């Protein structure tokens, strides 16, 4: 079971109380008009889908409602780093 301490409300939450938000670093093209089809396809659909340490978003959905960043191992589910959305590291 995935257990993460929310960096905002500092409560320990289980995967049942959290919402997974997908991998970090998927950025919408900054200049949509000039972005190519390849850039749009990459943004909309393509994912790194890493086996091992994975940077991802989670939301403290049954809790304080804040989104935050987590580094988690996708085999062991060990959480190695938790950051607030502005990247400040909390405990």
């Amino acid at each position, binding site marked *: *079971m995935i257990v993460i301490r929310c960096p905002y409300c500092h409560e320990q939450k289980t995967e049942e109380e959290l919402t997974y938000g*997908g991998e970090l670093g998927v950025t919408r093209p900054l200049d949509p008009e000039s972005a190519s*089809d390849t850039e749009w396809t990459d943004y909309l659909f393509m*994912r*790194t889908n890493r086996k091992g340490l994975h940077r991802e978003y989670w939301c403290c959905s049954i809790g304080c409602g804040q989104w935050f960043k987590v580094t988690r191992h996708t085999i062991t*589910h060990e959480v190695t780093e938790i950051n607030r959305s502005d990247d400040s590291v909390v405990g």
Partner: protein
Amino acid sequence: MQRYSFFNLARHALRGNTTYTPAWHQPKLKPQYDVVIIGGGGHGLATAYYLAKNYGITNVAVLEKGWIGGGNSGRNTTNVRSDYMFPESVAVYDLALRLYEELAKDLNFNIMLSQRGWMTLIHDQHQLESAQHKMNSLVCNGIEAQIIGREEVRRMIPTLNMSANARYPVIGAFRQKRGGTIRHDAVVWGYARAADQLGVHIVQDCEVIGFEKAGGSITAVKTSRGRIGCGAVGVAAAGHSSLIADMAGFRLPVTSHCLQAMVSEPLKPLLNHVVFSPSTGVYINQTQKGELVMGSARDLYASYGQRGTFPTIEKTITAVIEMFPIFGQTRLMRHWAGIVDIVPDSSPILGPTPVGNMHINCGWGSGGFKAIPAGGLLLACSLATGKPHPLALKFGLDRFRSNRLVDESAAAGSAH
């Protein structure tokens, strides 16, 4: 290789079953193959079999990093059906079911196909309307199915909770009679044995660790057991497809998730359908041995952890007992998970890739087992001819760029 028949069965039995030989060889790796297939699951082995049988290409190696039947082919819930929404999907999934119907004869291996009927419960007016919508679309696509009423469901599945205070009352069911179950090990073993008989090399304990490329094509596959030269490469690695694509130098619209399943102790026969409840997300059937096989929706976070987790087990079991209170005293025997390859439109990716001589078969999500014969046949065609099979045209990787998705997740409401 010896044919399996009643006569041979009896002959072996009289000799105390000590005279059987292995169903396939442990070949010595050759330095070069015409086709190397990555992934020795159902899709990879079926690809090798159809390459040899339909296209006469037998200088083929199937590389499996674990053992045959140890990945998703041994981790699914063995269900088959073809009740999809879009004509292009039905064409592929029903081809798979039709091939499955002939497969035991074709492979000379009893795959224990049991077309006991697939039943999707209908719990409310909205589900009834979408079931009718799906029915109409299936009729247009030539697939036989029916909607049955509450009393008929009660008669067919007397153990189902039909009481007025059920959490999800049952008002009827959608039923595809040709749906059912297959012994999943038998599918991979049967394909492996038949492909081996045609000269294909099945190499277990052989993990791909990289590629050698020249001029935009792959010239050799680097593996944990050495370098293997190749003419073409087929990828049938399901939840691990992204890793292969990454080594080959392109990206896939795939995320890997756990799909869990569990099995109870064996009971006397009491459930003769595959039953799926769209409200609880649970599907359940009873194996020929008597065990109850149960599963529900995939875990929603990215994962390569091939094991069950308690939140999902609890959710699934709670729903099963709500649907079948009679199973309340049954003990759970095993639980596990397979890693499924989820794509945004819940349809497979079939055919060529940005790498010249690499062809792919992935993206089946939680529906890969039911598609094995078709997936193998279509990838074999792609590898043999260099072009996608006509049935695979709408399922190319390029559909994400041209934005022509085949959105089965929205259309058929499938759980994957």
